[in-house]
């Protein structure tokens, strides 16, 4: 039982860092540009699809990773130039409608280009083994790589946002974008940078998860909702909040799904527990969100000035 718990905690952390990679970009775009980007999930999906294609062309995971990141960045910048730039000054309803349109376009476009059938990407050979955990349980190395790379990105973002000049501008932009612009900073370039960087992080998440999940159209939509829950719990615009909330959601969701039925059996018969358990488990994070927002309507770490 205890080693099973340990494995599920690792799985929860893995989902958590994945959510962080997606939520970091989302919360930056939200915080700095005040833009609701429902289409952030398509960058994640594109990252995975492009990695599959580039792996097919080059046969090297590393090359596929680099090329996929470059391609997601290019796609994001093009999208920013064509659509999103026009949206910053609009209200949230316009954001919802336009980015919903982008989702429809990209989801179907992916079907058109790659087909509707799920694709898969092999785990890089060097990292395809398993390690033995306590209690003799095997755990795939690749999942540990995901956790490690996610934590590395978190540290990198902490340094970048907290201790560099660009990071200072981003933080200032999240607090008061018009003022930053008035001080002579090219705000359009800053917005483009933040948008592209955020999209690339989501693309990175897509590449890293592709060897574990099946790569299919619409894969970004489900994870996007979770990422929204993360940034709302964490406080919109706060990277630190996104990190804490992402790990929290990852752990609560994974542990809830694994142990809800067992826990409920302490209170009720096995048959009702099997019915109620899965429903309760999938509701858990939304209940958590409702509780957090009831107690702290602006999330756990509200960004200053909002």
């Amino acid at each position: 039982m205890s080693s099973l718990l340990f494995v599920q905690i690792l799985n929860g952390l893995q989902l958590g860092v994945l959510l962080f990679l997606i939520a970091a970009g989302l919360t930056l775009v939200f915080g700095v540009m005040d833009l609701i980007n429902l289409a952030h999930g398509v960058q994640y999906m594109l990252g995975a699809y492009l990695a599959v294609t580039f792996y097919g062309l080059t046969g090297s995971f590393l090359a596929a990773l680099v090329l996929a990141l470059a391609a997601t960045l290019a796609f994001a910048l093009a999208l920013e130039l064509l659509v999103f730039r026009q949206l910053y000054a609009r209200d949230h309803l316009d954001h919802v409608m336009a980015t919903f349109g982008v989702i429809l376009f990209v989801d179907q476009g992916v079907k058109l280009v790659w087909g509707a059938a799920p694709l898969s990407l092999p785990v890089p050979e060097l990292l395809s083994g398993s390690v033995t955990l306590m209690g003799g349980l095997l755990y795939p190395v690749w999942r540990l790589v995901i956790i490690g790379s996610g934590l590395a990105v978190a540290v990198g973002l902490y340094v970048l946002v907290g201790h560099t000049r660009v990071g200072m501008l981003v933080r200032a932009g999240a607090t008061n974008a018009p003022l930053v612009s008035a001080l002579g900073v090219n705000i359009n370039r800053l917005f483009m940078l933040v948008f592209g960087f955020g999209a690339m992080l989501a693309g990175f998440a897509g590449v890293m998860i592709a060897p574990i999940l099946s790569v299919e159209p619409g894969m970004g939509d489900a994870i996007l909702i979770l990422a929204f829950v993360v940034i709302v719990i964490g406080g919109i615009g706060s990277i630190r909040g996104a990190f804490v909330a992402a790990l929290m959601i990852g752990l609560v969701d994974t542990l809830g799904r694994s142990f809800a039925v067992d826990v409920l059996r302490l209170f009720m018969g096995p048959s009702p527990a099997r019915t109620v358990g899965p429903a309760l488990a999938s509701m858990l994070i939304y209940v958590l969100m409702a509780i957090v927002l009831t107690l702290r309507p602006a999330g756990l770490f509200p960004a200053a000035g909002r």
Partner: protein
Amino acid sequence: MSAAAPLETRAAPIAARAGIAVPGLIFGILAALPAGALLAPENYLLALGTRIMTFAIAAVALDLIVGYGALVSFGHAAFIGLGAYAVGILAAHGIGELLVALPTALAASVLFALATGAVSLRTRGVYFIMITLAFGQMIFFTASSLAPYGGDDGLTIASRNTLFGLPIFKDPRALYYIVLAALAGTFFLCRAVVGSRFGRVLRGAKENATRMATLGFQVYRFQLVAYALSGALCGLAGFLLANANDFVSPAYMSWQRSGELIIMVLLGGIGTLYGAIIGAAVYLLIAEFLSQWTEYWQVIFGPFLVLVVLFGRGGLVGLFSHHG
């Protein structure tokens, strides 16, 4: 309310003309549609019209709180689902009486709206959008795991609701006119609400909630009642949808459905009520015709939505009215 009078009279001529002519035209077309059966197979036309009007009811209900209360709910499909599941679950237990199913559908929607609204309305702006989305997802996952009622696969309804044993929904033409009557009822009810003192408080809170609170209004209560009314009307739409489709499934309340409802409201023109009907019709008609033409219709539809946002401010209604 004398202070508001000059503003009201200035806006009155345009609003009054559009406020009578456009809805009159819309309901005239809808009432005459079955006669157009010569142009298309009748049952197809009736089914499409019924579907459009059902979603129009939900869109009008959403416009009531989005357009007049600035409460952007991203979870309104949940209420449609609740209304539909009320019909489905009762039917699974052999209860097909309309006088049981309809009140159940409405009560479920109102209770859910009061419970979630009480929490959601403490938040503002983006947080409100996201928390309503979260509550919508909760209901979605609950329905997905209702194993006794079909779970993910949904639930087929063996027979439509009857009124005192009378199969009033059986004939497609009768169903069409019942849904039309429900849409008209919804529209005029919402319009009366918007025009009432209650509606003015709601609109006042949309402009400036602090000012309304200072004037002594308990804004929160007004918003909660509006939210519950909107939820109940979506429950009505769900009730009708279940009867028209003979089927309910969790897909009725996916977040994409909630997004579609918002788009219907925006597409037609927010804050007009009749714009929501136009929006629902245009959205579903374009989707219908494009999907007959190509499997990949969303590749065209997506950019269309983006273009409407970028160039058609104020929705389709905005294109035809003159704001100077």
